[in-house]
């Protein structure tokens, strides 16, 4: 177990390093540098050169990279020239919003996916399973942005059941019950849109796991001992199938981030994905760099955690 964890860590460390180099290189390709946002246009060329020297922009790339990385590790990503504030502060505000959106989405993903998967696996090839399989078949092929647009159109505009944008009703006092309720109300439709598409993989996986496990010897034994059907499903089969699903959560992070980029754009929800698109369009590249680095590291750490949990859950993986 420890051997596997250490070996897995040894793969992740260079991944993060490589990612940071790529992002640094990309940042260098982006037009403009730290000075573009700071200087008013009247400043002389010599003064500009002096400031470049001061900020270390004339150093060779590896020294610049080292300085940049040292700053990034401490949460210093420079300043956003559009918002005129620290990138880390700006990004932090948006991360909190995206975190809530993702959390509620994850809740729905499992709240929808687990029951559907279990029913589908237990009654495989019956009518109810065919309905669920039909849903996963179509859900798998539906791009999340189309689903998001259509649900906003139908439930937000036509039926008027949900607010159509933003993260909270303006004018409410933070901390009050009304504020929290309004936040939840704004989260509901976007997170359901993410979950209904995102849960498809969980349903399909759980279904095939359960159908597989149903035919194993230990289930026959449990039945032969006279365990009631409910107990067989709830205790023996479900427990065996649920662990890998919990472990896949880390890999899900990448998908979740992908989904939030589209969904936040559609629902005008002020999260990271929304900030990312805005910043790219406005050429606010220090923000872009910070966001890509943070999500990239998040995805790498997520995959790492998933692999480690999987190795605990399923000893066969450790042998490799």
């Amino acid at each position, binding site marked *: 177990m420890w051997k596997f964890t250490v070996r897995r860590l040894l*793969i992740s460390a260079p*991944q993060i390093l*490589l*990612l940071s180099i790529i992002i640094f290189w*990309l940042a260098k*390709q*982006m*037009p403009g540098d730290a000075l573009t946002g700071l200087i008013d246009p009247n400043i002389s060329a010599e003064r500009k050169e002096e400031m470049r020297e001061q900020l270390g922009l004339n150093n060779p790339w590896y020294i610049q990279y080292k300085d940049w990385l040292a700053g990034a590790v401490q949460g210093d990503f420079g300043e956003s020239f559009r918002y005129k504030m620290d990138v880390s502060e700006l990004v932090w505000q948006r991360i909190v919003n995206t975190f809530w959106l993702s959390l509620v989405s994850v809740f729905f993903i499992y709240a929808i996916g687990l029951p559907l998967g279990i029913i589908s696996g237990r009654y495989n090839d019956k009518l109810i399973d065919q309905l669920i399989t039909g849903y996963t078949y*179509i859900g*798998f*092929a*539906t*791009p*999340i*942005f*189309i689903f998001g*647009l*259509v649900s*906003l*159109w139908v439930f937000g*505009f036509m039926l008027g059941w949900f607010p*159509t*944008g933003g993260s909270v009703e303006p004018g409410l006092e933070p901390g009050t019950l009304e504020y929290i309720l309004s936040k939840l109300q704004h989260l509901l439709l976007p997170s359901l849109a993410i979950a209904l598409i995102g849960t498809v993989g969980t349903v399909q996986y759980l279904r095939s796991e359960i159908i597989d496990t149903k035919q194993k010897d230990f289930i026959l034994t449990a039945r032969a001992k006279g365990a009631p059907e409910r107990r067989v499903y709830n205790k023996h089969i479900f427990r065996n199938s649920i662990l890998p699903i919990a472990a896949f959560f880390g890999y899900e992070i*990448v998908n979740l*981030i*992908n989904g939030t*980029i*589209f969904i936040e*754009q*559609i629902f005008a929800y002020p999260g990271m994905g929304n900030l*990312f*698109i805005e910043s*790219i*369009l406005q050429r606010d590249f220090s923000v*872009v760099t910070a*966001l*890509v680095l943070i*999500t*990239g590291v998040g*995805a*790498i750490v997520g*995959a790492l955690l998933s692999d480690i949990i999987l190795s605990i859950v399923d000893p066969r993986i450790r042998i490799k």
Partner: protein
Amino acid sequence: MEEKQTQNEQEQVIQKTPSGIKIFWKEILKDKLALFSLIFFVLVTAIVFTVSLILDKEQVVKVDLFAIHQPPGGDFILGTDYGGRDVFGQLIIGTRNSLWIGFLVTALSGFIGIVVGVVSGYFGGHIDNVLMRILDFFMVLPSTMLIIVFVSIVPEYSTLSFSLIMTAFLWMGIARLIRSKALQEKELDYAQASRTLGSSHFSIIFKQVLPNITSLIVVTMTLNLAANIGIESGLSFLGFGFPENTPSLGTLLSYATNPVTLEERWWIWLPAAILILVLMLAVRNVGEALKRAADARQRRA
């Protein structure tokens, strides 16, 4: 006499082994949904490519301020958008562009995936190790974000650079599949025997391993085509797809980010949304039928 009969039987058996294409056809003919999907897809492709030849592109993208936001009917079958441009014409050209880039990206990423997968699986050892570590790295990257960053900083951005950028982040799935299959295939007796008889690696890969995994390649690339159409339209929807003034299905959808358009002018974006969905489902239906045909155990009786 008896000997002759068995010989006849043997000949019959040999005749009865159908070619791969025949099996595919049989499976598709049996699966009415897949057959319908295939016909639909071929029809849409044919219509879109021929009509866009006839269609006057200048006319389609020309701004006409007297015809802004006209609902369907009248002069324009599907109404007009915010610049008074014909939505139907944009739909045709957009579908053509989306399909075209779908094919291109599928072919490019398929090529890279097959090369990496076969080399990695066939040779194994250090080569496999290095290639798989690179693949793992690409798998874990936040690809949507990176594609968007590349798209917005590439100088002289064009359709070709767009498809190359997409390809760079989409070759891993097929590579991993092909690798595991090649890994199994090279251990089989026929490949080992060829090696013992002195065939070169090159000829074993091209004459024996590759032909044996063709069905897997065809199935995966069909399913990838469906996915790639979706990814392209998603990127175009966000505004990071085709270069400007080249409409795609996603471009029409991106007009719906304007709440008024979303709420009141459904004719601009809804046809494109439905078309993307139906096209992706159709391609996937065909892909699933091919998948069943490729696996003898799953074929329909």
